[in-house]
């Protein structure tokens, strides 16, 4: 099969055998991801991709992907086949949700986030991905403000499942939440908040947002700025 020669695309080398044997699905995934990213930047041509990619022998991999029915070529442009589109979408989704998790919840540095997310995207199953998506409240954008492709859980969001945990800032005025965790940027926020009784397990009520956030925890009323309120993650309490 690998010996069939179809139309020759200019610029691509044709050394099949060895390359095809070495090719792993991870490498295909990585390249699919890059094609997607280039498409987001409106760069669809083969030369653009080959210029910008860091993958070795990317041109050969492209050829193999076309053979496998993941992509096809239209003149100079690369386009997704249906299977390729789905697969690329999943990878991007996993990658960006992983970024959200690492950056927004665990407060990891941007560089760490990027390296780790690159690994995450290859190992997360659909179920785990959807759980992370639900946990984060179906975020629409990654930390780089790029769109996160929707999953099946996002559609249900409209009707059944509510996000489990959300920052205090997303409560409605007058709504109560139970603190699930606090994610402070500085550890002394923890201590000062805990002195006022603002700890996981306590219930807080959001009084107002402007001009400052005012919450009530027990019988204590506290004023704080939005950036501190965003560090407190609550789940909705049904009274």
């Amino acid at each position, binding site marked *: 099969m690998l010996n069939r020669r179809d139309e020759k695309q200019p610029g691509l080398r044709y050394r099949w055998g060895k390359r095809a044997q070495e090719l792993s699905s991870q490498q295909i995934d990585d390249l699919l991801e890059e094609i997607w990213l280039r498409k987001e930047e409106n760069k669809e041509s083969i030369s653009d991709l080959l210029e910008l990619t860091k993958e070795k022998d990317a041109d050969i991999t492209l050829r193999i992907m076309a053979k496998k029915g993941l992509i096809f070529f239209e003149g100079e442009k690369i386009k997704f086949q249906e299977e390729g589109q789905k697969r690329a979408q999943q990878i991007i989704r996993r990658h960006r949700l992983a970024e959200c998790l690492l950056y927004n919840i665990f407060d990891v540095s941007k560089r760490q986030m990027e390296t780790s997310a690159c690994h995450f995207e290859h190992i997360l199953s659909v179920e785990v991905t959807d759980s992370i998506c639900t946990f984060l409240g179906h975020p629409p954008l990654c930390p780089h403000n790029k769109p996160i492709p929707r999953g099946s859980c996002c559609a249900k969001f409209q009707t059944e499942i509510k996000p489990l945990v959300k920052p205090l800032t997303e409560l409605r005025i007058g709504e109560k939440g139970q603190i699930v965790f606090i994610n402070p940027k500085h550890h002394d926020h923890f201590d000062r908040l805990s002195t006022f009784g603002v700890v996981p397990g306590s219930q807080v009520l959001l009084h107002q947002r402007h001009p400052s956030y005012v919450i009530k925890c027990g019988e204590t*009323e506290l004023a704080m*700025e939005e950036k*501190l309120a965003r560090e407190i993650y609550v789940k909705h309490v049904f009274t």
Partner: protein
Amino acid sequence: MKRKSHRTIASQDERKSLVLVGNPNVGKSVIFGLLTGQYVTVSNYPGTTVEIAQGKATLNRKKYVVTDTPGANNLLPMSEDERVTRDILLYRSHEHIIQIADAKNLKRALLLTLQLLEAKIPFVLVLNMMDEARDRGIKIDHRRLAKILGVKVIPTVAIRRQGITAVIHSLDHRSSGSFQIRYSKLIEDGVNELERLLPEAHLSKRSLALMILGGDESLTPWLQQNLDKRQIAKIEAIRQSIQAKSSLSLSYLISKERLDHAEDILNEVYTSEPPITTSWKAYLGKITMHSVWGVPILLAVLYLIYLFVGKFGAGTVVDFLEEVVFGKYINPGATQLAERILPIPLVKDFLVGEYGVITMALSYGFAIILPIVGTFFIAFSLLEDCGYLPRLAVMVNRIFRVIGLNGKAVLPMVLGLGCDTMATMTARILETRKERIIVTLLLALGIPCSAQLGVILGMVASISPLATLLWAGVVIAVIVIVGYLAAKVIPGESSDFLLELPPIRVPQFFNILNKTMARIEWYLKEVVPLFILATAILFIFDKLHILTTLQRLASPVVQSFLGLPAKATDAFLIGFLRRDYGAAGLYTLARDGLLNPNQIVVALITITLFVPCFANLLMIIKERGWKTAAWMALFIFPFSFLVGGLVNMALHIFRITL
């Protein structure tokens, strides 16, 4: 109000020591007053009661020295106040401790109670503000609580003196309680290891071990006094190894476990059935912070203060004191007396001459400054006690963020309108050094104190509304721009805005009276002598004709750049020593027709921005140090002239006549 270090509090003869501890805003100072029969500043704005008050009391026929500590939420110190409180308990043994709690916030108080129990020191628990708890439908079974903890628990309403007798009776019996909590294994292991290394102390080894685990660095001096280097190194190693086994900070874990236990206790003794109707106080509490309605309320409050301090204080009372008391009686009386008994003209001049101590310093100090500052303090105490002040901070926080401060800075800024010197001291309530410097700078630069504010406003308003706007606009713009730049330039961090909002209360007349008297007393002791000193310096300058020399030196700048007549220099020079004199000097010039409206505005703008008065400068040196004070003065001095000159040029260029 001098700061007393716990180390210098000498034990007073055979008096036993009684210490009051508790969260901020619980009424400690009220109870202190009731026990000792004397008051200290009853301030519930967090951080203002930094000083420690002590008083004598005879209770149950025993003699005590009662110490009122700063409000503390935790004996694992996270602020200087808490460290001082902890140190007071650590460095001396006390006969008895009274923990005063806000009944409705019992859970937070229990955080402290559990630590007192761990420390194994005798104490009683007072549940204060029971009336507010009742208003919210909160019921506390204090007998049950007493049984659980093993110490006496007494409900009180301190401002109405209810329950105080029971508190005094409870001091007969000393109990350090029986309730102890057990922490998770990790922490208990750490405590066991540390206990073996710690020496005997006034607080139990267990409580000290927990403080060390919590990363309390302020304990180091005490450790160094009692242990050798090797042991301290071992202690640190143990702490680090325990911390390494946990992904969360140990101090957080310990607090969290304490709060969990507090919650358990609470569930057994505390019930809350909130009433259906909101009280008017709760409603006020909300609306004063409302993003829309809060603003007119704020403006109304400011206007009322202006009426009270500006019109009544600076107008009616000052006029009375100045013209009648001093003008008709004291000044002429003193002058006549001096004529008769003091032959030496120099001494006579010193006392009753143009720059005389009595005729100038005292008459201004008592006739002009005192009524203004006094009325201001009354208004301020009212704001504090009713609970509005923190809400004011909420309203202005966003604006203050622009200039590198947060809403808490509203306290010194507003106080600065009364007296900059006192406000500079209050800058202590801001948490970071950077914020304290910015506030001190802005106070010295742009906030006119009440002494000159009255004169300035009077002068500028009599010209035209445009003139008033121009003056106010330039000063405010300068404050904002300098604050913004200072925030960028000065190294350091700004603190986060996290402020507790006490409930709106009806202020008690006696509290206000006592607070105001305490502040006036401070003012008379600390600031008035500086005015006398300044007047004396002026006297010497005048006698040595230094003033005229300085006038000649400064007049090029004053005349050409600012476009003012030479005589205005006097006003500026004097303005350094006595703020109000500077403004008054300009007033005289204007009244005598020597200044046209343009010049008046330029002069007023310059003098508002001019270097801080002598007293304020000394306070800056004391609070922020020589170097910072020098930098500020070096900046403010030419800067104020620069702005004045620019305004002058602008008025010329745009051919505006005010």
